[in-house]
């Protein structure tokens, strides 16, 4: 019979011999080596082991990354604040974005086919927006499984340039 065997590429560990090794339990964020310590080879190996141990020991208690919520980025430029969320495999109709009292609420649901038919998984996240936002002008786009919400700042909350003459 055919069998698909998962293979770890980024990490080979003697700890795998301990017998509790189950690749599907390790979330991506826990097995990716931290690049900021990349220069120190030994330290990186040790980190991987620690991450792996945490991933295994707490696997049942700590949901993968951030409490099962989807990852969110918050960034800004001159005129807008942006919220970007990773929501792979979600239909556009199943995403709802709302501004609620200075926070952005993102809700999404994904239908999943299971052995007994279809089940729906829903996600939601509330992101507090640091600046005054013009709620009427908020726009959102969804591409390649990534939702980007643009929140234009209100005119009065934009930084104003004041010229000071020095005598």
């Amino acid at each position, binding site marked *: *019979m*055919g*069998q*698909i*065997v*998962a*293979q*770890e*590429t*980024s990490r080979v560990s003697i700890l795998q011999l301990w017998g509790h090794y189950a690749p599907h339990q390790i*979330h*991506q*964020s*826990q*097995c*990716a*080596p*931290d*690049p*900021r310590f*990349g220069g120190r080879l030994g330290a990186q190996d040790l*980190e991987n082991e*620690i*991450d792996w141990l*945490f*991933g295994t020991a707490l696997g049942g208690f700590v949901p*993968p*990354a*951030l409490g099962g919520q989807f*990852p*969110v*980025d*918050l*960034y*800004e*430029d001159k005129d807008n*604040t*942006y919220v*970007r969320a*990773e*929501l*792979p*495999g*979600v*239909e556009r109709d199943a995403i709802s974005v709302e501004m609620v009292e200075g926070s952005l609420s993102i809700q999404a649901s994904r239908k999943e086919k299971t052995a007994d038919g279809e089940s729906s998984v829903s996600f939601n996240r509330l992101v507090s927006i*640091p600046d005054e936002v013009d709620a009427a002008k908020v726009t959102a786009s*969804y*591409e*390649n*499984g*990534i939702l*980007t919400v643009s929140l234009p700042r209100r005119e009065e909350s934009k930084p104003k340039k004041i010229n000071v003459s020095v005598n």
Partner: protein
Amino acid sequence: MSFFNSLIPTATGAVSRIEPEALPARRPSYEINESESGYTLAVNLPGVSKEGLEITDEGGELRIAGKRASRLPEKAVVLHRESSDAAFELVLEHDNTIDPSKTEAELKDGVLHLKLAKAESAKPRKIAVS
């Protein structure tokens, strides 16, 4: 330590910019289901476009590599960062029990759906007892 970074992403300086090419590839989350004739594989690849995706099947090894197309704009000031620009890589061994010529792939909304057909030799065969 990414476990701690995942708890306090900003406090540990995770907002600093690192070139995506310098980051080690991440293993995406995926799901495999088996049917009589083959397998279906769904891989979460948020931010990966068709152009950045590479699927190879060689020597009994299926390799899926995806580079992220969507990145934060250069001039933006990052206030909080939880996602990563690191590329995805998933390698699955199948011992040639899959017929690569019959593999079908579809990338939709950041999820790659692969249909893998079982090789004829791997299908169950009934043997009559004479």
